[in-house]
């Protein structure tokens, strides 16, 4: 599903020396894996997520995603891949304010071409258990509900890959457990999940853990999935 080969990312800053966020990173993630990226802040977790997520291109090296070599793609081509193959889940949910849950879920359809399919959005909301909250504004929902709406939004174009950046970071443990249950179910359907987290409890859901430090891979190990 994902193949990073000698990927480096250097951020040039207008003032001060360039910052190396990723330094010759290589790894493969197979289809259907559930992987966590761990490491202290500044280790390069987010940079990897951005490269895999087609939000950023590597300074050097190549990145293959679902068979496509994306490291030299144009903005337009990257956007297309992002819209069709990747679902993002963020720590801070990033729902549009003054917009209903249903409209938030519909958002990715706008850019995928074709018509807005309201029923599909309703099904996606139903999938995360929020069918009855479709007409509510994002601000009227609890944190856990907002994150579930965000997951429904990530699912609407049926992407094979879910990228989650600290999805439970802003939630209490009960809501976090609900979110992780949904992600686990998505994994069980065969989707590939890449999850950035600090939380040992969340990391325990994954089958594989890649630890980063200073832009390099520190360890890459499979683990036994804890009882859920």
């Amino acid at each position, binding site marked *: 599903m994902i193949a990073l080969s000698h990927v480096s990312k250097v951020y040039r800053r207008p003032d001060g020396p360039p910052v190396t966020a990723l330094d010759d990173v290589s790894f493969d993630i197979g289809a259907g894996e559930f992987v966590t990226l761990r490491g202290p802040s500044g280790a390069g977790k987010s940079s990897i997520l951005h490269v895999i997520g087609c939000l950023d291109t590597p300074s050097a090296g190549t990145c293959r995603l679902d068979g496509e070599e994306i490291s030299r793609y144009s903005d337009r081509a990257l956007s*297309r891949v992002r819209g069709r193959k990747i679902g993002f889940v963020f720590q801070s949910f*990033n729902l*549009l304010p003054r917009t209903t849950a249903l409209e938030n879920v519909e958002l990715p359809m*706008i850019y995928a071409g074709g018509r*807005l399919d309201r029923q599909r959005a309703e099904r996606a909301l139903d999938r995360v258990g929020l069918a009855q909250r479709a007409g509510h504004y994002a601000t009227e929902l609890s944190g856990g509900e907002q994150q579930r709406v965000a997951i429904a*939004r990530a699912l609407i174009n049926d992407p094979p890959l879910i990228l989650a950046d600290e999805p439970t970071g802003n939630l209490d443990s009960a809501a976090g457990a609900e979110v992780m249950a949904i992600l686990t179910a998505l994994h069980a359907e065969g989707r590939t999940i890449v999850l950035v987290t600090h939380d040992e409890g969340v990391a325990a859901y994954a089958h594989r853990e890649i630890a980063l430090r200073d832009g390099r891979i520190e360890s890459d190990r499979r683990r036994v999935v804890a009882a859920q």
Partner: protein
Amino acid sequence: MTLMNGLALAARSMRRHRLRTFLMTLGVTVGIASLTILSSLGAATRQETMARFKRMVGTFDTVIVRPGSGAMRGMPSVENTPATLTFADAAAVATIPGITRVALVQTAFNVDVIYRDRSDTPGVFGVSANWTALRDDEVATGVFFSEEDVRARARVAVIGTDVERTLFGGADPLEQTLRIGNVPFLVKGVLTSRGAGPTGASLDNVIMIPVTTASTRLFNRDALTMAIAQLEDPLAGDAAMQRITVLLRQRHHIVPPALDDFTLTSPRAAMDRILAVGATLRRLMIGVAAMAMLIGGVVIMSLMLVGVSERQREIGLRRSVGASRVDILVQFLIEALAISCLGGGIGILVGLGGTEIVTRLQHLPPVLVWDPFALAVALSVALGLMFGSFPAWKAARVDPIGALRS
């Protein structure tokens, strides 16, 4: 992103940011409304000026010959013109090829006209019988005097509607006798009302009598105050003026550089001068309207820029779910266009209403000029594009990573 989706997005965004949308729309509305009102009024004023001028001069295919050199103020009359233009001069002008007829005119504006116990001082026009044909004057009731009346120096008069109202006050004036400067005249007809002239003064406060009668019985004067030569070819005014000048100089023994004792004017040239004054005023008004449009554009641009920086997160999110830079650019442009077209549409409605109100207040004819409205539609679109593209470009440049992290 399809166009329908783009429009739906714009509609949602406009609903989400009602105040901002309202202010931007208002900016465009004010600009478009002032443009349409000012230019419609300009056009209406121009048309009204032309109409009034046309009412005064009757036809444009003429050359007006007046005694005396140089410009003069007001209407020529027996009191303020030298006695240099004679009946014989006018007869000679009528023989020039290309001139179909010449109307003879003697005017006075200080002669008392009395009917029973009422009196008035209208303009008294001694004119030839071809006056009606040449000036497009029509007789509403009764008849105009004939060539025979002119030859016989008949004491007959045709009155304007103002005189009819002042002296007769609703009674039938036909076959009544009124006294012009103590000479009795029989009323033969009433002219059709001509309305206001270019200065706004009424053109109906007149009495027409045969020019021969005026000359011998009233003014005791052989000189005309004006002769109006009608041209066969309306565009041959310059050539005709040249021929008239040669003829009159010859008859009056004038050799340049001595000054002519007559002045030729063409109504067309006079109207062009009048309209030129109006054109300057109109340009000024268009300038004011353009300024209002510019302000509307700047309002759009600054509020959109505020919007872009407030909506960084939203832009980042849209990018993460598949929007390309072009999608974002197009989305913001559509928003700008939707707002400027909405504002433009309202502006056009306000402009139509405002034009209607002001033309009524100014007693201008209800002239609807479509040009400014067509222009307004084009300008609304142009305004949205011009002042929306920079904010839209800024929006497309937003870094999704930074925006999502914030």
